[in-house]
């Protein structure tokens, strides 16, 4: 049953992405000032929104663990965070490549790229913490608390870096361009977002099942060693 859900999600996601690619390359006209490169937005922005959505849902899953003490919720939280981290990596890489064309440099301390990098660092720390703890309940507990802190902090980090870059101006990634995206241009963005969400859901389901297997292995090992 589960396998069928995973397969359906993946195939649907793949189909939407493929159809969208066709639209992006052939139907959407080039943007006036940026040229062809702006099409990266169709991967950059959906990946960004997917990853942020993931981090916040994972936080609620962690809170759910703290309330119910059900380790499955911890597995779900860890899986969601891992998949969101992968999408955050996509966001940074595509943003950096976009910047290479627009500003001529691979990296700049633009508000969004910097905030994303901080987010990446915080969640690398999350996974480092998980690896360093052997006891599953302690690991679940501390990961949940860390993800609460992380999610509250990300908002503050975003706002403060944005304000910092307003005072010390750097290059600005004009994503919405003042709300002036032509009508034909915006739709593929949301379709890609849907596709990414489905892909993320499929990956999360697979990862959660793997975490369940890991717990089963630990339990069997404890059982085997107990006698």
């Amino acid at each position, binding site marked *: 049953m589960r396998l069928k859900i995973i397969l359906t999600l993946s195939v649907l996601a793949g189909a939407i992405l493929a159809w969208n690619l066709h639209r992006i390359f052939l139907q959407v006209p080039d943007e006036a000032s940026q040229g062809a490169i702006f099409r990266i937005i169709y991967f950059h922005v959906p990946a960004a929104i997917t990853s942020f959505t993931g981090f916040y849902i994972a936080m609620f899953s962690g809170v759910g663990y703290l309330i119910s003490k059900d380790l499955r919720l911890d597995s779900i939280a860890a899986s969601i965070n891992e998949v969101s981290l992968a999408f955050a990596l996509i966001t940074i890489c595509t943003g950096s490549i976009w910047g290479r064309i627009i500003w001529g440099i691979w990296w700049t301390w633009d508000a969004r790229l910097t905030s994303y990098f901080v987010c990446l660092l915080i969640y690398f720390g999350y996974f480092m913490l998980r690896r360093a703890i052997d006891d599953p309940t302690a690991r679940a507990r501390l990961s949940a608390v860390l993800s609460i802190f992380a999610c509250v902090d990300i908002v503050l980090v975003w706002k403060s870096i944005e304000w910092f870059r307003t005072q010390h101006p750097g290059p600005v990634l004009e994503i919405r361009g003042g709300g002036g995206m032509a009508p034909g241009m915006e739709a593929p963005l949301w379709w890609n977002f849907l596709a990414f969400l489905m892909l993320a859901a499929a990956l999360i389901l697979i990862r959660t099942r*793997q975490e369940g297997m890991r717990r089963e292995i630990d339990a069997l090992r404890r059982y085997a060693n107990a006698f």
Partner: protein
Amino acid sequence: MSPQNFTFMFYGFTAAWLIIIVYVISIALREKKLRQELDRVKRMVEENEQAKK
């Protein structure tokens, strides 16, 4: 439209797809490793049961 513009657009899309593919491969490898370990531990438990009988 400068050719460099197009090239980098393809680099961008390639980077995104590459990250997804690498991640999916790493998940698949982890799955294989976990299954092997699960089978091994299950066999170990069965052997213990047999030995006790």
